[in-house]
């Protein structure tokens, strides 16, 4: 791939759009949940203010180099996941750094941020961070199993490891989406997707009512600001990944926003309906139905 300055500018543009979309989503979702609960809810632009405020804190405490790098790794995980996918199918501007084997690197970036965060939170020395990290890692490890099985099933189905080609194969109407052509892989992926969104029933890692806020317990000021940026980018990147793999990708931003919003609502609905799992529950759950669905998806290809 030849180096070009345009490519970098396009990548920055993608990050900018996705960041804003993610922040607005972050504001709208609690608002919807609040309206369901009979409250007025936060302002839709509250996430923006929170980020400005966290960066505006005058003092910050660091516990060492890994502590410093934790949020950086986390943000790298989010941006990496985003930039190695074709965000808009067929667009030379928003195709970004998609290449022939991007499906594997995308799988890797799913886990990258969590590991970086584990190292960073570990150095803070706070017991709540350590417990949060061990919970988070065991949950992510369990949900990776159906995720990987589903992705392998899709790769076998289309005989490719390129997300662009997978999206290209799905063009031509709803009937050619993976959702229809490979329902078992879709089911496995969508169930593991629930776990990776950090919403109930799988939010024991970050929930403030559990051990206080989990891994980022010691993170404050600018560190927390960077984590919040990632919390806006990472879910949207994941939504785009699932949209590309299962629902035919998007050829315009409008289509992307509609599709990702609907996919996000799936995790919100489940989160509103079901109570929180403990980690041993969620690990067992991921190794149950989603895992079996993943195996069936591979066997049926």
């Amino acid at each position, binding site marked *: 791939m030849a180096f070009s300055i345009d490519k970098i500018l396009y990548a920055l543009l993608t990050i900018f759009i996705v960041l804003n979309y993610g922040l607005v989503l972050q504001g709208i979702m*609690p608002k919807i949940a*609040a309206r369901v*609960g*009979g*409250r*007025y*809810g*936060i*302002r839709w632009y*509250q996430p923006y*203010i*929170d980020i*400005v*405020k966290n960066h*505006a*804190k*005058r*003092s*910050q*405490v660091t516990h060492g180099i890994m502590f410093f790098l934790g949020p950086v790794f986390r943000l790298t995980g989010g941006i990496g996941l985003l930039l190695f996918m074709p965000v808009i199918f067929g667009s030379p501007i928003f195709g970004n750094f998609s290449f022939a084997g991007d499906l594997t690197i995308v799988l890797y970036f799913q886990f990258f941020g969590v590991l970086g965060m584990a190292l960073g939170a570990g150095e803070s020395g706070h017991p*709540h961070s350590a417990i949060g990290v061990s919970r988070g890692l065991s949950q992510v490890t369990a949900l990776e199993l159906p995720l990987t099985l589903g992705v392998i099933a899709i790769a076998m189905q289309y005989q490719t490891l390129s997300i662009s080609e997978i999206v290209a194969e799905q063009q031509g109407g709803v009937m050619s989406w993976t959702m229809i052509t490979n329902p078992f892989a879709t089911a496995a992926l969508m169930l593991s997707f629930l776990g990776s969104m950090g919403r109930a029933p799988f939010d024991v890692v970050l929930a*403030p*009512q559990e051990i*206080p*806020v989990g891994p*980022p*317990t*010691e*993170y*404050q*000021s600018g560190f*927390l600001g960077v984590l919040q940026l990632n919390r806006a980018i990472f879910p949207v990147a994941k939504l785009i990944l699932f949209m590309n793999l299962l629902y035919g990708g998007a050829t315009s931003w409008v289509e992307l926003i509609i599709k990702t919003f609907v996919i996000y609502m799936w995790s919100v609905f489940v989160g509103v309906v079901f109570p929180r799992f403990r980690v041993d529950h969620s690990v067992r759950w991921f190794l149950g139905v989603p895992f079996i669905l993943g195996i069936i998806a591979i066997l049926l290809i």
Partner: protein
Amino acid sequence: MEKRTVISPEGESFEVDPMKDYFCDARPKVYEPVLPIVEKFLNWARSESLWVLGFGTGCGAIETRPLMTPRFDAYRYGIQWRATPRQSSVFIISGYLSVKTLKRVVRTYEQMQNPKFVMALGSCTINGGMYWDSYNTINRLDHYLPVDVYVAGCMPRPEALLAGFDMLKKRIREGKGEGANLYAENFDWYKANQKKIIKDWDMPDYNW
């Protein structure tokens, strides 16, 4: 909190000084505000995103809970509850403060990051209230922590609390929410006051 010798699993023995190894005892710093026009914007952001530390002291803790419910819903004013002092900016002292709790309150306050604001509820924090002659509670919170806003009452209702938050926002926007700097400037005075009350002072003078 004395020095002690610890033997590691490998059989090595080394000395641990809890006061030095577990705490940082650097004095707090005064942070000057930046350019006025920028500071004005930052102060607006600070005032519209108040993260409250969920630290329940006294009976007022029960009055802050209804703020999260549909009836009062403080979230719409940008007020959220955080479970860790590192991330929160508003410390609510919700009522009488016993000597034992004061120690935890001081530690928690010092772990919060500048700028930080203190809101004191009820008459107990103003002059001791109904506990003014108790052997075990402090009378004036202002002597131990720089208080930004008092909400009077015994106990103040959630409506009064919302009014208090409004007042706090106004103060922050006017650039008067400099409690953390005040604490750093008059550090020795605050420490002397705290040590007068807390007899078993077994921590460094400043521990963040």
